[in-house]
């Protein structure tokens, strides 16, 4: 394996370098925790590797109603931000479930997203939180919901010269991420379930990972939860609906029917956990009564 490493220092320069290269001749390096494995096993053999290290995309920017995370921000930096844990508990949980602390000090949010793995522990929670992705490319800047970025296994709608600049999330949302694995660490999840409650519009969001062909929102199941405080029956119905509608495969980690059962259980637990977090997030209500 040999390649030339290039370090553009502006997004425009990065896009220019990507535009000037044939697909397959250049690979984008963010944290590298996946890319270097692909280079090792020759799944990829680019002539050049474009490092995003010098781009000014390492930041967490809070505003009144949103959090913008720069795409090359290490997951560890997001995890270590105390506000993330308090305001977006589902995101914090999902990040903590990626690899190990040392892996997270390199791995980045943009890298995980651009990779588009169906088993990603981060994509379900980004879907549940209605994350928006800002993309730079030859045509300038565009913003799209994360749902429209994902296409299939390891495939996104990013153009060959486009880069993920940042991800925008709500500034706070009661949310939960749960997973099941053969072993708790050093393994990828058999399924992952993210739920979130957003005050505006249809309140509930349910998203699944470890399903085919890509992580997805389960709008049919969300529709079963009309109110902020669903009954036990409605929660169970939503869980069953998610399990029934999703497409699963059998592989070395789990059979199709086991994944389906896991989803039913985990969706129920995730909604219940999110409901508990909603109660905790509004302590003033009890006091007023």
């Amino acid at each position: 394996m040999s390649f030339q490493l290039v370090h553009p220092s502006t997004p425009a320069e990065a896009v220019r370098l990507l535009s000037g290269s044939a697909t397959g001749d250049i690979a984008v390096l963010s944290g590298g925790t996946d890319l270097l494995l692909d280079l090792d096993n020759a799944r990829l053999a680019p002539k050049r590797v474009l490092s995003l290290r010098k781009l000014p995309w390492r930041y967490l920017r809070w505003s009144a109603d949103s959090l913008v995370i720069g795409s090359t921000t290490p997951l560890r930096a997001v995890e270590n931000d105390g506000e993330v844990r308090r305001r977006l508990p589902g995101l914090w949980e999902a990040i903590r479930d990626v690899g190990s602390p040392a892996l997270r000090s390199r791995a980045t949010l943009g890298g995980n997203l651009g990779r588009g793995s169906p088993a990603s522990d981060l994509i379900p929670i980004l879907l549940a939180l209605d994350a928006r992705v800002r993309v730079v490319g030859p045509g300038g800047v565009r913003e799209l919901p994360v749902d429209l970025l994902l296409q299939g296994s390891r495939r996104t709608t990013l153009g060959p010269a486009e880069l993920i600049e940042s991800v925008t999330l709500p500034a706070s949302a009661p949310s939960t991420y749960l997973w099941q694995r053969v072993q708790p660490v050093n393994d990828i999840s058999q399924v992952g379930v993210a739920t979130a409650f957003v005050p505006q519009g249809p309140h509930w969001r349910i998203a699944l990972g470890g399903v085919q062909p890509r992580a997805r929102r389960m709008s049919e199941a969300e529709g079963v939860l009309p109110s902020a405080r669903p009954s036990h029956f409605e929660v169970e119905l939503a869980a069953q609906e998610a399990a029934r509608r999703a497409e699963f495969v059998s592989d070395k980690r789990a059979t199709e029917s086991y994944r389906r059962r896991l989803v039913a259980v985990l969706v129920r637990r995730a909604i219940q956990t999110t409901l508990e977090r909603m109660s905790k997030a509004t302590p003033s209500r009890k006091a007023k009564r």
Partner: protein
Amino acid sequence: MSENSLGLSLNGKPRHFEKVPDAERLLDTIRWRAGLKGTKEGCRTGDCGACMVLVNGEPTLSCLVLSREVAEEKITTIEGLSTEKVGRLVIAAFEEAGAVQCGYCTPGFVVALAAQLGGRGPPPPLETLLDGLEGNLCRCTGYLAIQKAVAAAREAI
């Protein structure tokens, strides 16, 4: 600087290496160019933690980092830690607890623990420290002694 030379800040000293391919991993630069063999190669896929070093104080898997990506950062290996107070305390705690079987994973554990105990203020709770070692595997499965060493190191800080 010629295209193939590489400067690194390694254990507080500037080091310079010639003819370093862009694809070279930090693990290989540390072991084969700097000759610091305390950092081990285990899985080379980021799963085992044997290759752990500190980059600006953060535990990092040196098998999954290109050397050129950290050319401007401060890198500390187990050899560097063994000359510092926290590192020495952690190493002593591992020795006293007999938390070393074949020893291959030990430098990684020491690096991961010392990073957590090196901050100002009181040491984190024991459970937090053990969580922080989640990415370090002991293939001899000598975890009980390692847990004792972690508790002892925490007391000693």
